[in-house]
């Protein structure tokens, strides 16, 4: 990238690192960090929405709705999450192809499951075989995001359900005494107050979500782990530069990245806790009130 990189003398100097770390393959590596951030940016709000829905459903007065909410939040107990990731990716993929198959090719007579094969008509292939590479990649990424959102939505559901139960009962009773309808009590009293109780659990889930992002690699996405392996390995197809096995250093870089990311998140979440404690009927809120009065 730099002008001095064309000069062979730089090979023995420190500037060589500047040249090495800015070559084309490394920019692809840096771009793959965006994949991680994109995953986080999409998954966090979606799984929060799923969790909110699940928690609200768990409190519903209609029994079937309550059962759905409880089953969903109980789903993630007892089984390693990576199993869910691997399971859902395949299930969604097959479900989409199956549904499209039923719509696009209604006159198809052969069974879809033939022994070890899952056969649908060509028009139902998702994405189409002739589609450009980026469509395939985007489809895989979308499946991964959806899977993450489902699993982490169940975590959030657990936390939000607990937070809703932690809001003092007297607050809700007061609202009812003022003649609010159940929906009004929920939206005006319960929801604004529950966040401070949910925050410790939610910040925990956020840190866990950060630490779950390298699992994207297992789902076949070209993320930072993929590129670290490709660039660090001594003979890989994606990277032609001959060098010894440097994967250790690349993974060390990833480790530092994750540690820094975790630390920054912790600091931000601590500040958010202070903000949300404002005016709450908790110990932290009471301390803020006293400090402001003094």
């Amino acid at each position: 990238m730099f002008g001095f990189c064309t000069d062979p003398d730089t090979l023995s100097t420190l500037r060589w690192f500047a040249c090495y770390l800015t070559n084309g393959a490394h920019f692809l590596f840096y771009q793959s960090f965006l994949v991680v951030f994109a995953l986080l940016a999409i998954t966090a709000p979606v799984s929060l929405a799923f969790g909110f829905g699940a928690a609200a459903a768990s409190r519903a007065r209609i029994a079937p709705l309550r059962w759905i909410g409880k089953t969903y939040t109980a789903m993630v107990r007892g089984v390693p999450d990576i199993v869910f990731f691997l399971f859902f990716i395949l299930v969604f993929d097959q479900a989409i192809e199956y549904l499209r198959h039923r719509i696009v090719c209604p006159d198809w007579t052969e069974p879809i499951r033939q022994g070890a094969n899952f056969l649908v008509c060509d028009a139902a292939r998702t994405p189409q075989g002739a589609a450009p590479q980026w469509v395939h990649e985007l489809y895989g990424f979308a499946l991964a995001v959806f899977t993450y959102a489902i699993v982490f939505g169940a975590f959030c559901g657990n936390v939000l359900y607990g937070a809703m139960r932690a809001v003092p009962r007297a607050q809700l009773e007061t609202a009812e005494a003022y003649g609010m309808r159940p929906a009004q009590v929920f939206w005006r009293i319960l929801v604004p107050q529950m966040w401070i109780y949910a925050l410790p659990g939610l910040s925990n889930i956020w840190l866990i979500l950060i630490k779950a992002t390298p699992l994207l690699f297992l789902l076949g996405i070209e993320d930072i782990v993929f590129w670290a392996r490709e660039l660090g390995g001594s003979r890989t197809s994606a990277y032609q530069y001959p060098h010894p096995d440097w994967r250790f250093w690349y993974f060390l870089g990833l480790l530092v990245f994750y540690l820094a990311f975790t630390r920054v998140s912790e600091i931000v979440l601590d500040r958010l806790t202070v903000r949300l404690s404002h005016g709450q009927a908790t110990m932290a809120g009471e301390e803020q009130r006293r400090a402001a009065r003094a």
Partner: protein
Amino acid sequence: MSCWVTLQDYGLRSLGYGERLLPRADITLCEQAVLIGSGMIWNVYFGVLALSFGFVFAVALALAKNSDTWLLRKPATWFIFLFRGSPLFIQFFLAYEAFVLLPRVGIDINLGFIEITAETRWFARAWLGALIVLFLNTSAYAAEIFYGALRAVPKGDLEAADAYGLTGWKRFRRVVFPTTMRLAWPGYTNEAIFLFHATVLVFFSSFPAFQQRGDALYYANYFADRTFNPFIPYPILAIYFIALTLCIIWGFGAINRRLNRHLPVENRARLRIRPNIIR
């Protein structure tokens, strides 16, 4: 082929005994259940050993983090942050790459002692290398739990110990340690469950499964790839893990009852099992 024969052929396949070739075509439900169950041996092996060694180290780490001495406190704090702040997945990768690099370094330093080179090669194998990573990881997580409990030991307990004239090691062993364990045990139970769940990452991340001797997820994934049908192997794996989780809850619950046996019934700490969580 009856299921009994399958059990004889594949029951210990994950350890390298029995039939060499994995089933390829016409995979039966029995074969899937037996092989995935065989893989569970590895999950239990990693979980039990890492937890047992990790418990001792975690107590030491928690005490070091609580220490007044800078030289003890800082390294313990950094160690805990290092292993809790980064993904276990990356830790496995990094450890594997480091262990693979070891022999060259070892030969350079030790001038080619045969025992040393043989030993350093074992680090790159899952049974030792992954165990070390899991041991360090669970130590860090458990140390944070124990540290929190240590800070939460009631002041009255310590004053009572002082009143009885207990000091130093005796005070720790008779008062501080039992109370810490009692307070930490529900959290530590969750940690144990997560650790067993984390063992599925061993063969899936970096450590190669030598001669296809893998853990439960390795075989479940093998079947899902072979049959292209996720609805059988993954639920089997889930059933095994739920059974394992119930065993852990039962065992740790028994210890919890023993730790709390002197307290009035309403004051006893209940085990609250949280949903599992990736590390």
